[in-house]
């Protein structure tokens, strides 16, 4: 059963629901957990802030789809406008606009989480069966050759010529039509987002889903959450517009995403007892490099990333390496990011290309010859979220270790782009830095300013704001995803990760959600 905001507003009556489990959020963390619990016979209510849209609503137009499925209509940014916040705001969450890149959490990162951060119960061996099942559910497979557009082929060729490890990117797709509109939501239900996988399974097993409903307040009784109140939102403006929801459940799971979960918990005033709440935030800031080629690249068709450069996933140091939020004594050498072909439709591409007026439109007239790359930086400097004056504030540091990695990522991207014949490489900064030869790379990258607003960086993979750990002294949830100090409040999304997973996070979130689901089931009295 799905009940949507417009229907609830028309009816105009407050709604009371009771369930075994109330899940806030319907992305990778929430939808999968809801499905698994519902299939075990638990009664589940899902509360989702965004609207419910299906493939029939996806028209592949950027502005229309930003309004339907992207948080803040794609206009949200960190406090200093350094990074654009990319997150889902719809049933299915960010998986509806994601690229479908589906990596298991690398074994080295799981070991680091165990050995450095003390994480228990989430080892490679513990997660392996979950990964296998999730990969079957989502049809995860390596991208085949027909799905590599020209930009992908160039990335593969460039990486091979430079001696960098490049590999097929695992994809969650079925019978992909290769339209290139993954970020606008798949109009063919080929991308295996939560919308077409775990959400239907949860509903088939009896889960009740309320869309356009913003979770606002947990009612507490000692160590237990007694109820959750939510407001129905007007879909046109996202503002409260009508009746309220009140859900009484035996357990509550916050799965509102890397930005949404710490924000919701901070708004409850939990920071006083959970000092780590909103701290240790990471976002995978994404530096891009654009390139003009002599040949047609047509970057906007086919899947975004069939080939990815894995050579630099782990940073290299000349001594002990840095771990997220911790100092290291080694000198940084290179790496600390995944490196992908980029894919943007023209409006978003126009927005991130440098300059304006005639100079900018000259670039856009060369659209078919414009290609580019993007890197997901494995953050080492933690960011922070807080609530100030009722508004969410977000500090995302781009200096220190993050800055070193950003510069190296720009350097490597330019190197590869020239290797495969770029006539000009553009860094997209406010100063409009452009170079035409590989010999100019070092000087150009050294001069790039990383001060607020001067670069275009997306932040698509947030997490860490409700990290997992031993006690409330250093973390927000325990190893069973339960919020410290509560008996029946859990978190199931990337907020619990102690550091970035170093790959696109969707599969990591799903596997962790399996562990969370088991803990929630076990906790039901």
């Amino acid at each position, binding site marked *: 059963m799905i009940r949507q905001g*417009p229907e609830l507003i028309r009816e105009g009556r407050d709604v009371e629901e009771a369930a075994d489990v109330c899940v806030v959020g319907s992305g990778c963390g929430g939808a999968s957990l809801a499905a698994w619990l519902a299939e075990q016979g638990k009664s589940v209510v899902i509360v989702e802030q965004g*609207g419910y849209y299906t493939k*029939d*609503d*996806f*028209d*592949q*137009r*950027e*502005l*229309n789809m930003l*309004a*339907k499925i992207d948080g*803040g*209509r*794609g*206009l*949200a*940014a960190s*406090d*200093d*406008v350094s990074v654009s916040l990319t997150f889902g705001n719809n049933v299915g969450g960010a998986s509806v606009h994601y690229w479908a890149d589906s990596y298991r959490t690398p074994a080295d990162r799981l070991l680091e989480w165990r050995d450095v951060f003390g994480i228990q119960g989430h080892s490679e061996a513990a997660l392996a069966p979950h990964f296998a099942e999730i990969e079957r559910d989502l049809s995860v497979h390596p991208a085949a050759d027909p799905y590599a557009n020209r930009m992908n082929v160039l990335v593969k060729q460039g990486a091979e010529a430079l001696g960098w490890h490049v590999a097929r990117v695992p994809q969650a797709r079925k019978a992909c*039509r290769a*339209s290139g*509109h993954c970020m*606008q939501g798949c*109009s063919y239900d080929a991308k295996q987002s939560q919308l077409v996988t775990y959400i239907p399974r949860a509903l088939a097993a009896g889960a009740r889903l309320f869309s356009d409903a913003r979770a606002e307040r947990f009612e507490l009784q000692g160590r237990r959450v007694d109820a959750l109140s939510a407001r129905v939102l007007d*879909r*046109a*403006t*996202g*503002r409260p517009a009508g009746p309220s929801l009140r859900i009484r459940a035996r357990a509550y799971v916050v799965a509102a995403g890397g930005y949404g979960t710490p924000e919701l918990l901070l708004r409850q005033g939990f920071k006083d007892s959970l000092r780590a709440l909103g701290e240790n935030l990471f976002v995978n800031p994404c530096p891009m490099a654009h390139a003009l080629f002599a040949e047609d690249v047509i970057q*906007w068709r086919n899947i975004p990333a069939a080939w990815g450069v894995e050579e630099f996933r782990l940073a290299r140091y000349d001594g002990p390496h840095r771990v997220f939020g911790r100092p290291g004594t080694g000198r940084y050498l290179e790496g600390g990011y995944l490196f992908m072909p980029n894919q943007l439709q*023209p*409006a*978003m*591409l*126009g*927005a*991130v290309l440098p300059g*304006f*007026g*005639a100079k*900018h*439109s000259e670039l*856009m*007239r060369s*659209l*078919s010859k414009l290609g580019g790359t993007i890197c997901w930086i494995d953050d080492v400097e933690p960011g922070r979220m807080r609530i100030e004056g009722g*508004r*969410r*504030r977000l500090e995302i540091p781009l200096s220190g270790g993050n800055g070193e990695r950003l510069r190296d990522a720009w350097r490597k991207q330019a190197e590869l782009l020239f290797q495969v014949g770029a006539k000009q490489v553009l860094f997209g900064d*406010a*100063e*409009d830095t452009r170079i035409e030869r590989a010999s100019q790379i070092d000087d150009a990258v050294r001069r790039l300013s990383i*001060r*607020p*607003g*001067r670069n*275009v960086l997306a932040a698509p993979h947030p997490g860490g704001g409700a990290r997992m750990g031993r006690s409330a002294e250093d973390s927000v949830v325990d190893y069973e995803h339960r919020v410290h100090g509560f008996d029946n409040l859990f978190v199931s999304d990337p907020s619990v990760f102690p550091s970035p997973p170093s790959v696109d996070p969707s599969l990591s979130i799903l596997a962790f959600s399996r562990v969370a689901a088991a803990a929630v089931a076990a906790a039901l009295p």
Partner: protein
Amino acid sequence: MTEIARRGLIQLGLGGAALLALGGGALAWAGRGYALRPGEVAIGLSVKQLAVARALVETLVPGGDGLPSGLDLGIVQKVDEQVWATDEGTASDFRAALLLVEHAPPLFGFYSRFTTLDAPARREVFERMLRSRRDVFVQIATALKQLIVLCYYADERVWPHIGYDGPWIKEAKPPDSTLAYAKLLGQRGGKS
């Protein structure tokens, strides 16, 4: 006061504060010296903010060489729609950013408001904002440019001129916000 305006004050120092005070004074005179053009309606923005948005659209997406102008495509109204439909925090930042642009030219050597400058002077001011040592101007110039350029290249009338073959789904399905905004616009005598 919005986040951008507060950061602006801190970064601009005394001169900037005086500048903003002038801007604030001008707010009290909202509407004076600013007018809507035929068919325009200010819903998400004030009349003054809409005038600044119009000047920016003329500067950033002027068209030419076969490309349609942002003004002819109604991008000013589209920007107003985005501000109307977004959350109040983001919307107030955009509104503040527009006011800062309007009163910034003296800091870049042009003793006039942005809306009353001629086209070459506006281009020069905007270029200097993007390259300014003061972060706040780079931030607001970048944010406003991104919003306006996004609206412009999302317009399918531009696509044939840049070689973009467009979506495979032929029928546009506007979001609820666009439908609701169009209704408001119609009620107030505007055209989209």
